[in-house]
C-alpha cells in the first residue's frame, strides 16, 4: 500500500512529488513489490489531487503493471494515518497495539518509493527530500527539494524569507506538528512541512465540558474523548485503558470541534505519558522484586549447603569419635604414666 495521502491540511509535498516524479514512484513500487514478494499494490491518492492522479495514471500507462492499482480516497483528515489508510483502502482494522503487517499490509510513503527508485536505479542514496514551506509567516509558500541536514532557517531564507510578523515556527503540519523556538534545526528525512504562522492561535478560555459528544463524532478511532477527558482528570488508569486511551492517534480532531476549547489532545498526551511512566515503574518494581526473591533463594540455598556440610562434618566426627577418644585416653594414660615415672 503506497500512501500518497497528505498527512495534514497545508501539506502538499507528496502531491508535488507525485506530479513531478510519478514514474519514479511507480518504479519504486515495483522494486518494493519484488523485494517483498507481494502481488498487489495500491497507490492511495486523495480525490482533490487531480494532477497527481493524472500523472500517476500516465506513468502507469507507460509502465503497464496490472498489479499496481491507483486508488482514489476522499480528502478527509486524518486518512493519511497508516492504520486509517489501511482501513480505508482494504477495510481491515489494524489491531490495537499491532502493525499493519498483522492484517497483511505494508504501508510506505510515495516518497519512500521514489527514494527506493533513486537508490536502486539512479544510484543516489537518500540525501534530499521535498518539503512544504508554508503559512502566512513566510513570504512565498512553496514546495522545495532540500538536502537533509539543511537548517530550516536557510531553507526559508532561500525561498523568500519570513514576513514581518512570523510568530510561530512549526515542524510538521498544523494538527500534529511541533512548535520550535528556533529555526536553527535541521531538515530530517521525516520533515514533510515547515509551517510559519504570523499569529499564535488562541482557542479562548477553557470552559467546562458540556458532553456534546462532537469529539466522539469526529474521532477516527471511534474513541469517546469526553469520557477519556473525565478519566484523565481523575487519573483513573484502569478506565483510561478500558476506554482506549492508548489507541488515541493524537490527530487533534477533537480539539478542533470542542466548543469548550479544551486542549484534549495535549491532555491525552500527558495522560499517556503518565500511564507509560506507571507501567515503567511497575516493570521496574517487578524486576526489583524478582532480583530480591532470587537473592533470598540464593541465601537460602547457601544456608542449606552450609548446614549440610556442618552436619556431614558432625557425622564424620561422630563416626570417628570412639577411636579418637580411645586415642586421647591412651595419650592421657601415657602422660600420667610418664608423670608417675618422673616422680
Amino acid at each position, binding site marked *: 500500500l503506497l500512501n500518497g495521502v497528505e498527512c495534514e491540511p497545508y501539506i502538499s509535498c507528496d502531491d508535488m512529488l507525485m506530479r513531478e516524479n510519478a514514474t519514479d514512484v511507480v518504479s519504486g513500487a515495483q522494486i518494493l513489490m519484488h523485494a517483498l514478494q507481494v502481488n498487489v499494490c495500491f497507490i492511495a491518492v486523495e480525490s482533490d489531487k487531480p494532477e497527481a492522479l493524472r500523472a500517476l495514471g500516465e506513468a502507469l500507462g507507460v509502465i503497464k503493471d496490472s498489479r499496481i492499482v491507483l486508488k482514489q480516497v476522499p480528502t478527509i483528515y486524518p486518512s493519511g494515518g497508516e492504520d486509517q489508510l489501511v482501513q480505508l483502502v482494504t477495510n481491515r482494522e489494524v489491531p490495537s497495539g499491532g502493525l499493519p503487517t498483522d492484517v497483511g499490509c505494508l504501508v510506505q510513503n510515495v516518497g519512500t518509493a521514489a527514494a527506493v527508485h533513486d537508490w536502486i536505479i539512479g544510484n543516489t542514496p537518500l540525501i534530499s527530500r521535498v518539503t512544504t514551506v508554508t503559512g502566512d509567516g513566510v513570504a512565498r509558500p512553496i514546495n522545495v527539494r532540500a538536502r537533509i541536514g539543511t537548517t530550516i532557517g536557510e531553507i526559508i531564507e532561500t525561498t523568500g524569507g519570513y514576513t514581518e510578523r512570523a510568530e510561530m515556527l512549526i515542524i510538521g503540519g498544523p494538527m*500534529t506538528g511541533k512548535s520550535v523556538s528556533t529555526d536553527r534545526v535541521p531538515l530530517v528525512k521525516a520533515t514533510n512541512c515547515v509551517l510559519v504562522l504570523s499569529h499564535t492561535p488562541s482557542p479562548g478560555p477553557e*470552559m467546562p465540558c458540556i458532553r456534546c*459528544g462532537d469529539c*466522539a463524532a469526529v474521532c477516527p478511532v471511534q474513541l469517546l474523548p469526553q469520557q477519556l477527558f473525565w478519566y484523565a482528570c481523575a487519573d483513573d488508569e484502569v478506565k483510561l485503558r478500558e*476506554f482506549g486511551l492508548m489507541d488515541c492517534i493524537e490527530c487533534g480532531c477533537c480539539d478542533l470541534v470542542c466548543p469548550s*476549547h479544551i486542549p484534549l489532545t*495535549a491532555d491525552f498526551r500527558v495522560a499517556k505519558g503518565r500511564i507509560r511512566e506507571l507501567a515503567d515503574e511497575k516493570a521496574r518494581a517487578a524486576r526489583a522484586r524478582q532480583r530480591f526473591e532470587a537473592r533470598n533463594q540464593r541465601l537460602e540455598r547457601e544456608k542449606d549447603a552450609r548446614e549440610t556440610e556442618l552436619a556431614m562434618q558432625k557425622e564424620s566426627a561422630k563416626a570417628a569419635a570412639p577411636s579418637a577418644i580411645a586415642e586421647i585416653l591412651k595419650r592421657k594414660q601415657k602422660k600420667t604414666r610418664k608423670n608417675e615415672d618422673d616422680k
Partner: protein
Amino acid sequence: MEFQRRPAPFLAPEASVSALMLHVLAALVPAAIAHVWYFGPGLLFNLLVSTVFAAAGEALMISLRSREPETGLTDYSALVTAALLAFALPSLTPWWVTATGALFAVIVAKHLYGGLGFNIFNPAMAGYVVILVAFPMHLNLWVAPSMGDLDYQKLTVLQTLTFTLTGSLPDAISFDAISRATPLDVMKSGLNNARTITEIRAVPIMGDFGGRGWEWIGNFLAFGGFWLLIKKIIRWQIPVGVGLGLLVPATIMYMVDPGSNASPGFHLFGGATILCAFFIATDPVTAATSPKGRLIYGIGIGLLIYSIRRWGSYSDGVAFAILMMNMAVPAIDYFTRPHIIGHDDNGGHNG
C-alpha cells in the same frame, strides 16, 4: 529568531459554548412570537423574571464557588435554562413561582452538582418539577388561546403585568372568564369521566391535532428545531427517539381502540412534546453521549411521556420523563460504547 511555542493542534476551534447557547435561544424566537400572539404577553414577563433570577443565581454561585466569572456568565447556559423554564410555564404565572423555579434550577440542580457539565438532572425540568410540587394550582392557569371564534375575555398588557407582580386579577375578572383547561387536561379528565374521543374533541379548544394555539407554537418550535439540526447544534437521534417512543405506542393504542385513546397527532402536537424533543431532551450535559445511546435515551423519554399521559395522574409527563431518563444516562452510556477501531468487541485487545 525566537519563536513562541505551544502544543498542537495549531488551528483554532470554530465552535464555542456561548455560540451554541445563542443558537438555541435564537431558535426559540419564532415560537416565542407565536406564544405571545396566542396567549398574550405573559411569556415575556416570565422570560424576564426567570432570566433575572437565573442570572442572579448563577452569579451568586460563581462568586460563592470562587470561579472565574467570565467562564460562567458568558456561556449563556443560565439564559437557556431560564428560557426553557419560561416556555414550560403558563403565560399567567406570578413572579415568585417563576423565581423559585429559576433559582432552584440554577443553584440546586446545576451548581450544587458541580456547575455546567456536571449536573445530572436537566436544570429547567428540575425547576419545573419543584414548581409543580410546590405551586400545583398555578400551573393550571393557562389562559385560553386568542382565536377569533373563541369567546374569552382577554387581559391587557398592564393587567398581565399586574398579575405577574401581585398574583391577583382585577376585581371585575375571574379566573374562569379568562382561563381554560389545557387540551391535555381536557383529554385526561374527559377520558377519566368515560367520555369518548369524539365527544372530547368537540370541545372548542381542540384544534386539528393538539389543541388550538398550542399546535401552532409546536410548528414554530419544530421549525426552530430543524434549524438547530441543520446547524448541527443538535443531532437527529434524540428528537427522532422521542418521536418514535411516543408515536409507536400512541398509534398502536389508537388503532386498537380509537374511542378511548387520543390520536398520535394529538400526542405529537399537544403539550410540550415538540419543545421536549428539540430543546429540552437535547441538552447535551444531561443526555446520553453516544449516537446509539441518544436514540435509546430519546425513545425512553417518548415512552415515559406516553405512559404518564395515558396511565399516570398528570396530564403531561415531559418533566418527569426527562428527569427519569437523566438518571438512566450513565447506564445507557456505559452499555452503548462504540466499537474502538482495532479492538475486539469485548473491549480487550486482539493484537
